[in-house]
């Protein structure tokens, strides 16, 4: 996917606030790209433009054939329908793509099992903990046949242990089906452990400060290794 000369501004108190100005980026299909930058720099806006939840003022998005079509979105909050069960929340989004109910339910159950929630399918979201709700959202994002995965700081509000458990659950699902993933975060260690490419962004109007591809396989990465210590030091400056 190529983001070509994207510009986006918002009208704030009578003045135009440029969030993106002539922003260009190329993303490799089938990889995880992390967008790292300070809060409020425009990362979420960029993700919303890619997800077509908003339109750019100028510029265009050029997607490859395999990236066109439905998109899976994982938000900061689980955004589950509170009146539906866990299973219903997951199977509901799949309806247009899996018209056969049995197939749809089986797929939803498979993904819920993968995130460790096979015993909670009949529960309502408010009967689950925050981490369990976010796992349902992960299952929903993967069960939905989105050609791309867009993640907007989905583990941000969780404690460290839960965060890493969810990162592992995510990577387990992602390894089974490697979809182009764009991942917004301001957590540098998380980005370094998860992504194939980490893009460091400036504050508004957002520009690319560094585009770094990590060659080390995920399972061999360690935040304490000299390579990753150096990377963290660089990304925090």
């Amino acid at each position, binding site marked *: 996917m190529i983001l070509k000369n994207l510009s986006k501004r918002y009208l704030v108190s009578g003045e135009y606030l440029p969030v993106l100005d002539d922003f260009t980026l190329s993303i490799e299909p089938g990889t995880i790209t992390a967008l790292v930058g300070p809060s409020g720099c425009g990362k979420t806006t960029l993700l919303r433009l890619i997800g077509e*939840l908003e339109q750019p003022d100028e510029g265009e998005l050029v997607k490859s054939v395999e990236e066109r079509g*439905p*998109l*899976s979105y994982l*938000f900061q909050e689980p*955004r589950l329908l509170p009146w539906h069960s866990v299973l219903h929340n997951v199977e*509901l*989004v799949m*309806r*247009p793509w899996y018209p056969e109910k049995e197939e749809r339910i089986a797929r939803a159950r498979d993904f819920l099992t993968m995130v460790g929630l096979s015993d909670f399918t009949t529960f309502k979201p408010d009967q689950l903990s925050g981490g369990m709700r976010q796992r349902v959202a992960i299952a929903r994002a993967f069960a939905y046949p989105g050609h791309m995965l867009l993640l907007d700081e989905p583990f941000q509000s969780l404690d460290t242990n839960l965060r890493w458990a969810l990162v592992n659950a995510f990577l387990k699902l992602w390894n089974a089906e490697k979809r182009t993933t764009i991942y917004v975060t301001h957590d540098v260690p998380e980005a370094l452990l998860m992504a194939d490419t980490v893009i460091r962004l400036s504050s508004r109007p957002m520009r690319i400060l560094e585009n770094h591809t990590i060659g080390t396989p995920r399972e061999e990465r360690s935040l304490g290794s000299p390579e990753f210590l150096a990377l963290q030091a660089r990304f925090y400056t």
Partner: protein
Amino acid sequence: MNRSTWNTNLITALSVLILLGIWQIGAVLLDAGVILPTPGTTFSALASVVQQEPFSLNILATVARALQSFLIIFLVGGLLGILSGYSRSLHAFLVPLLVICKATPVMSVILLAFIWFTSGTVPLFSAFLMGFPVMFIQVEQGVKLISPRLHEMTVAYGFTPLRRLIHLVIPSLAPSIITGAKASLSMVWKVVIAAEVLTVPRYGVGSRMQMAQVNLETAEVLAWTLIAILLTAAGDLIFLSLLEVPRKLRERRSKLLEAIR
């Protein structure tokens, strides 16, 4: 029944007894059955009204008018409330109608409707004009409370407008719809009976009240008033019981599923 429920029921029964006592004392002091009959006389009148023919026809006529008005209010108020919640233009278009409906005295609406329509239609029309704003405003306000985050989720996951309506809008609006429906249902009974009193259709609780008043049968007026109160209470009770049905069905279904497992 636990102790606290017993206490509550006892207090309610005591309150009813005190009200009946005040009524009895007032009636004895006045000593004029035409102005204020005793509770005993009123209950005797109630018993004879119930035995009169066509008692059930009078009740059915009022119930039918109230239910028809309520159904129209529920559908039109609910639908326009949803549409207006999403469309500023429609909201602006409907504002004058709402202001008129809310500000016009009930009696003016009934009198004007009596000039324009037949006596049987007046209660329907008047109840609609009075109840519609209640339902409409509740639902319209409810639309504004629908979570924008959940709405965005449905956009991101490609929900069709129909799927969004069924799985997001209607469940989100359920509390507003229930509040609006309850309030408009209570209002409908009062307006329908008031319209019947003024227009005196062939059958109806209000018509009987009017006839009793003309004949200075105060005990009968009070008896029909008690019937109107009971109808309103029964309407509320049935409405609340209907709301419990989906929950009970869900509970039965999950118990059944657990038993199968």
